[in-house]
């Protein structure tokens, strides 16, 4: 029941978008998984938020992952009134990752975007204050990328510390 309602609500919400914007849409229970392409990411998120049918206006989560070959952004938007949530996955260019910022839609995603920049190097265009948030400001490199190489700094007061590989469980 919920699946059918949610599926049709999503299709209504995304009806106005150009062909090929949403690469795939699957609904399982109360969670929908959408794969969208980068060019229409902003439009998809705006439609999900503003459409009265889908009403996915709660910014639950924003993160990214890197497999070594591809890098994806993962957004999770929830609709508190309807009781469903949408997981939106979007591939970004791994060598030069850029994405549109959604801080004007949801101020709650401000720090989430800064964290994705800090760890993956994704530049969010339109972000008011895109700089590192968790790592020290002078850190070089983006640690959660699979091609990140740690270079110990030699000083305990600054820079990357040596990793004790023998400690892995």
């Amino acid at each position, binding site marked *: 029941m919920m699946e059918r309602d949610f599926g049709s609500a999503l299709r209504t919400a995304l009806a106005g978008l150009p062909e090929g914007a949403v690469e795939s849409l699957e609904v399982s229970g*109360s969670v929908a*998984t959408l794969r969208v392409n980068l060019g229409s990411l902003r439009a998809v998120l705006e439609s999900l938020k503003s459409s009265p049918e889908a009403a996915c*206006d*709660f*910014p*639950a*989560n924003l*993160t990214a*992952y*890197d*497999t070594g070959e591809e890098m994806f952004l*993962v957004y*999770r938007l929830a609709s*508190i009134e309807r*009781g469903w949530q949408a*997981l939106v*996955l979007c591939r970004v260019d791994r060598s030069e990752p850029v994405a549109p910022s959604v801080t004007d839609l*949801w*101020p*709650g*995603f*401000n*720090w*989430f975007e800064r*964290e994705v920049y800090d*760890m993956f190097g994704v530049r969010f265009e339109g972000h008011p204050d895109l700089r*590192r*948030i*968790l*790592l*020290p400001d002078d850190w070089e490199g983006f*640690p*959660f990328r699979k091609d990140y190489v740690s270079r110990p700094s030699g000083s305990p007061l600054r820079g990357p510390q040596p990793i004790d590989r023998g400690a*892995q*469980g």
Partner: protein
Amino acid sequence: MSLEPRTDPNPPTAGPETPAKGPAIDAQALHQEILDLGTQGMVMNMGPQHPSTHGVLRLILTLDGEEVMACEPMIGYLHRGLEKMAERRPYRHFLPFTDRLDYVCSLANNLACAQAIERLAGVEVPERAQWLRVALMELNRIASHLLFLGTFGTDLGATTMLLYAFREREEALALLEAITGARLTYNWIRVGGLPDDMPETWDEGVLAFCDLLESRLPEYDRLLTDNPIFRRRTEGVGVVSSEDAKAYGLTGPTLRASGVAYDIRRWAPYEKYAEIDFDVVVLRDGDTFARYLARRLELEQSVRILRQVFDKLPEGPIASKVGKVLKPPPGIAFSQVESPRGELSFTMVSDGSPNPVRVHIRAPSFANLTVLADLVVGNKVADVVAILGSIDIVLGEVDR
């Protein structure tokens, strides 16, 4: 104190012996001139070492006298790269690290991590384990809220509350130690269930603790809730409207104090919460007092849940069998747990190998802290401490 020039009933008469006076000073015009100058604001650093920042949080406040003009929170002083460390280990080896995220409520993190792995790998949890997980979560919620009551009182100067709250917290910790063996970082949830069953008379101990806590709640109310100084310092301070609360992604009692009924235990029930009768505490005011009261009232709801668990606890296995090497099928899965601070969610990405590709931890304190910068503007420095305390953050999960 008025700045209007006062008429002197006995003006000094100018005579040959009185010296000539200078031009009269218009006090009101001078005061207006000072106001028009405008001030740049004094930049004051609060933290990272500060008794009231609940850990290592740095706030750079720009002040106009006592009033805050701007606030910039800086975090990252506890960043360990836990999510990166998870990628170097098999899935289950990451569970002990999750204790140290929100270290005040370790079992919530354990549960969120185990649930994500269970959803990714398709592992079922037996009934008895699900009920006991609920009991552990609620006991931990009580311990966490007691810590909040104590530290929030201390932030505002009511240090007695700390001693009273910790007295009951020690009882709760003794119960948790009886079943898990540890006082703070329990690591007592496994993929598929629990490591071991509860000790023989543990349920009697928990029910006795529930009675004890209920008898002590009027004391807490006398100390804080009905305390006129506490009320004056928290009522009307730091009001968040429900639209703003949703736009900022707040969750937990911080959100529910602003009128939005979003509690994962009711919204997307996990374990056995769908079969338990309890109320979701929602308040309308959205101020610091409402955020405090939401947690104070949740103590009563947790006691209510604990009593129901032991009525309905079935016999049965305590964990389902999971193979030695856990290789979930490729895909992405997430878990959602209502921790005392809000929605705690683990998102895991698997590519079929024994180690995860990515583990992301959506910490409720990280999202809740984003509202601080805009909320304290216009308030006094003392209110900053009250507002920060009422948001109830734990920096271990903010920084990961």
